[in-house]
Structure formats: C-alpha cells, structure tokens
C-alpha cells in the first residue's frame, strides 16, 4: 500500500496537477431538509498555482475546502465524486492515512484561525506541538524551526515566547500562516484568511504569501467573497454560485472578458477606486435556498438575460441545467447563452 506521503518523493514536473476534484457532491441534512451544498464540482489546482474560489455566502466554497481536508462533520457528507491529490483519491481513506496527509501535504488557514491559537500556551510551543504530531523532531530543533518560520512571515523570532493575546490580530493570522508552512505542504487552503483584518494588514499578508510561494513553490486555494482581491492575487479564478462552478478562467481573462451573467454582475458589484465612476447595478434578488434550488440554471431567477419573450431559450434556461464547458482553452462557462447549443 503506498501512502500519500511516499508519493511525494516522485519527481514532479512543474505545472502538474496537484489536486483535482471530479464531480464532487456534498450534501447537508436528510429528507426534505436535504441541501446539496456542492453539486458535481470539477476543479483542478496545479503545482505552484494560486487558484481563487469566489462566491457569496452559502454558495459552497467553504464546504469544498472542508471536503478537501476531509474535515466535514455530519450532517455534511460527500455523496459523490472524487478528490484526487497527486492522483490518489482521498475519499474513503482511513483516518490514519488522512492524519498523515493533512498538514504534511495540505494545510489550511481559516478566517477565524487567529482565534484558534491556544490562549494559555506560548506561540513557540504550539509550533512544537504541531511539528511533533507529524514528524520525529526534538524540542530544541522544533523551537529553532518555529523561530525561522516566524521570521519568514515577518515576526521577530523572540515573539515565539509570546502568548497569543500579546499579538495583534494580523500577527496572529501570520503565526497561523507560518504554522501552515511548518511541514512544507504542497497545497495551502486559505479560507477568507484576511477577511477579518484591515486592508493594510491584508495587503501585508498577501504580499508575504506571494513571496513565500515563490520561495517554497506551494500552491494555494484561496477562498473569498472578495472578487476584486482575487483579480489581483490569483492566477486562475473559479466563480461559484449556489453549489456549482459557473465560470473558471485565468484572472486577467475573467476580469476583461467575463462570460457568465453572474460573473458580470459580480464584477459590477465592486465600485472602482480609480477611473470614471458610473452608477452600478449589482445583481437583483438574493442567492437561492439550497434546500429548494431553482430549476434549470440556478441563476435564472436573477439573470437579466432570462426573458420569457424568447420562449425557446427561456424553456432551456428554466428547465435544463447548463454544463460547464470550455469556450477556449482554460476558460470554462456554464451558461445556455454562451454554450450556443448542446454538444
């Protein structure tokens, strides 16, 4: 039996697929209250790449993160599809295999992570704990490494002796990022890592993540509701709506040539900081309840292009689910308007 850990040593070519979700489906609850939070999502992350996953609250983006880490708790469960990490399916792995996989191969930084530090334990000791849970390393060497990691994220190594409450929110979040780096994972999942922080601190942390990524070569799955942030920071962006990925494209292309009406509406929801100012429209209505999602295209009740004046198209929009298809290499859209017709 080959464990995920051993697989790592296989020589890799740059840009190989690191993580691949295939028709991943996750449901919450049972019976009438059942809600499909993630519905047949396909997503690939390549080595050393920053992939942004954007969407509104409740669209399923955090559920995807938790599914990859295999930390979904009942009533949530994976009901279909696979999560391939370096070709190996994580779904159905034993608890022990997953324990070794987590943190060593994939680590995670959460929005509230800065509150996840143990308040009565010195920061350095928490590093030691995390490292010794995953590898054989003596305390002194682990502490020295903790100091190095702290310096990497711009914190004085002497602060390893500090308690969490002695650090600011931004510093605590950087401590968590340093911890996520401790075992040199190939992928770091960041779920709204800077949402609770001020813009200046946010910028500092993002710059640091970029610099670290260049040095260490890890990939990042960056989850946020803030599309304007991703347009700057990510290499590729996937847009989620009501449990589905509706568009995925390189960041620059998504910014300049969005195809899905939801993406267009989302981009129309961020006022610019420079250049001419026009009245924006946003998107009418609100995201749907996933216990009872709209038929056909889930965006159709809010879509400005879904009009009963065009009966043929209207019927398809309201009854037929659009599939994600490539309109160009690397640019995929799930929309009846874009696809033209069934392949």
């Amino acid at each position: 039996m080959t464990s995920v850990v051993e697989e790592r040593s296989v020589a890799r070519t740059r840009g190989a697929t690191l993580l691949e979700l295939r028709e991943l489906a996750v449901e919450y609850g049972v019976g009438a209250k059942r809600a499909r939070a993630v519905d047949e999502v396909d997503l690939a992350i390549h080595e050393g790449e920053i992939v942004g996953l954007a969407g509104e609250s409740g669209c399923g983006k955090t559920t995807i993160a938790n599914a990859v880490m295999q930390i979904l708790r009942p009533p949530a469960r994976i009901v279909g599809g696979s999560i391939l990490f370096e070709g190996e399916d994580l779904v159905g792995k034993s608890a022990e295999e997953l324990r070794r996989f987590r943190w060593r191969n994939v680590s995670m930084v959460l929005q509230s992570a800065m509150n996840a530090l143990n308040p009565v334990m010195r920061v350095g000791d928490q590093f030691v704990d995390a490292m010794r849970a995953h590898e054989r390393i003596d305390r002194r060497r682990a502490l020295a490494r903790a100091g190095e990691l702290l310096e990497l994220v711009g914190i004085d190594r002497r602060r390893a002796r500090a308690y969490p409450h002695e650090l600011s929110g931004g510093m605590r979040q950087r401590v968590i990022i340093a911890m996520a780096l401790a075992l040199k994972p190939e992928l770091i999942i960041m779920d709204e890592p800077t949402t609770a922080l001020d813009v200046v601190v946010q910028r500092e942390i993002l710059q640091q993540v970029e610099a670290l990524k260049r040095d260490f070569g890890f990939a990042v799955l960056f989850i946020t509701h803030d599309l304007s942030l991703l347009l700057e920071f990510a290499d590729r962006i996937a847009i989620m709506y009501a449990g589905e990925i509706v568009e995925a494209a390189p960041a620059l292309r998504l910014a300049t040539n969005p195809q899905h009406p939801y993406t267009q509406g989302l981009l129309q929801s961020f006022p610019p900081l420079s250049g001419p100012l026009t009245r924006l429209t946003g998107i009418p209505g609100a995201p749907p309840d996933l216990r009872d999602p709209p038929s056909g295209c889930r965006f159709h009740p809010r879509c400005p292009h879904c009009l009963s004046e065009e009966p043929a198209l209207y019927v398809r929009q309201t009854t037929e689910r659009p599939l994600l298809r490539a309109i160009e290499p690397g640019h995929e859209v799930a929309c009846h308007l874009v696809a033209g017709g069934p392949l």
Partner: protein
Amino acid sequence: MTAAAPLEVRSLSKRFAIGNAFRRSHVHAVDDVSFELRSGKITALVGESGSGKSTVARLLARLYDPSAGAVLFEGSDVSRVRRRRGVLRYRSQVQMIFQDPFGSLNPVKTIRHHIERPLRIHQVVASGQIEEQVHDLLRTVGLVPPEDIAAKYPHELSGGQRQRVAIARALAVEPKVVLADEPISMLDVSIRIGILNLMLRLKEERGIAFLYVTHDLASARYLADDILVMYAGQIVERGPIEQVLSAPLHPYTRLLLAAVPDPATKLHAERIELRKGLASAAVDPPEGCRFLTRCPLAIEVCSRVTPPLVEERPGQAARCHVTAPST
C-alpha cells in the same frame, strides 16, 4: 455648495479608562474631531478597526456621552441633553443604521411592528394613516409588495432585505441626518450595490445628510461627496472625496489607497512598506504625530509636536508637518 449643515461636531473627544486604580490609562478613542454633515451630502468616515470611527457615530447618536467638545444640531448643543423629551426630539431628527441587520431587528416581531413603532412614538402621522405610511416606507426602500413584507418576520427575509427594513425604520421619523455604521459590510457582495444606490437616492430625493462609516474606500468613493480619514482617534485628512483620493496629502491616506485591492492595478505593481509600529497608538498618546512609527516621511518635529489639521488646498486639510505644514 453652501448646503445647510444640520449637524456640526466641534472638537469632540471621547476617552475610555482602562486598567485599574493603580495603573490607570486612557484610550483616546476620539480626539479633537470636528466636521459637519450637510443636507443632501454623504460624508464618508474611513479608518481601520480601532481608529475610533464607530465611536464617532455612537457619540453622534447619543449612545455615548463625549468627554469633551460639542455636537450641535441646528445650532444647539445636544451632546449633554439628558431629558427624555430632548433626547426624543433629537432622535426624531438623527437616526442610525447598524452594521448587523440580523441583530438590529426583533426576531419575534413582524416587519410592520418595527416600522410602526417609531411612527407611534414620534407621532409622525395620525394613527389612522399608520398602515398606509408603513406601506409607503416599504415601497420607498424597494420592499414590494409591502402588504406581504409587512406581515413577515425578520428571519423570513434575506440580509439585504433586513437592512432595507432597518433603513425604512430610520426613515419613518423623517430624519434630517442618518448615521450609517458599516451598513453593507455584513451583506452579500451582489446585494451591496443595491443598498448603496438606495442611500444615494434618499440623499437626492429627501436631502438627507448621511454619515457613512466604513473601512472600504471603494464604496466610500462610490457613495460619498466628502471624506474624513481617521487614524488613532484623530481625523488625519478631510476634503472632497475625489480630490482626496486622487491627490492624498497624509501618508496614512496614501498607505490605505495603496493597500486596497484595485483590479485596475496588479498586486505586483505597487508594494507597500511592511509595518513597523503598532496600530493602536491611542493609549495615552504622547505629544507628537500618532502615525510617526509607520511614516516614511517623518522628520524631527513629528516626534515633538502633534500636527494640527491644516487646510493645504481649498477644502482639503491634513494633519502632517511634511505635506501640510502649518506655517
């Protein structure tokens, strides 16, 4: 440009005591803040968390008593009014919208109840017309059909709809001033613009003077006519918003602008200097500029003398010895 200013703030300060009887110190949450809110104008109050911007809004809403300074409503100081009638009269003119549309509505009362209540308390219309007035208000904020919405409970509405209810409730008393404390930061991205557009419409149609408290410069630019930038309890820059954002004077305003993600410029293009000092410079601050430890422009005088707010360009003022010197 000479719109009436129903609300004027003069040298407002608020200190909170921290520590114990032996080690008493004070957070200067708001320190010597002056500005005015003009009819039919939106003033944005921008700063990072802990800068004192929410404290300013709460002082104006009479939720706190100021430590010093005055809040003038139509010329008379209301900051120390204690009598119920006086407070009521003030609140019928100055209303507040809070950040959390989930916490600011009573879960066991219908929407009708929330909007009726201020109408009754402040006796805005005769009791026979209350029903009609409730429906009018709901229509004004875009909640239709009003008959259905009025019968619902808060949990039956989305976050954006709830914030619209909060706005309708604030409008019920026909206020001259509305204080909006981060009204969109807890809402989904796709519905934020709708709330901002509603505020723009109310400003234009009703001539309301808005204070828009936010940490988001882009939405401030979209909404506001004027901007106040707060840092560590002080206003460090103020002026017409387009002018301030296109040619900022204070180094903190420049830092904020550089930090905001703007799809027009790439992250890689402009890098900001990493932080050296602490953000919370407001605990018993010594004399001198509070931005000193983070400032790339600091000169000798900055550590000795607190810079005054100096009008360097018409309408645009900053607290900076370097970019807005006082002599």
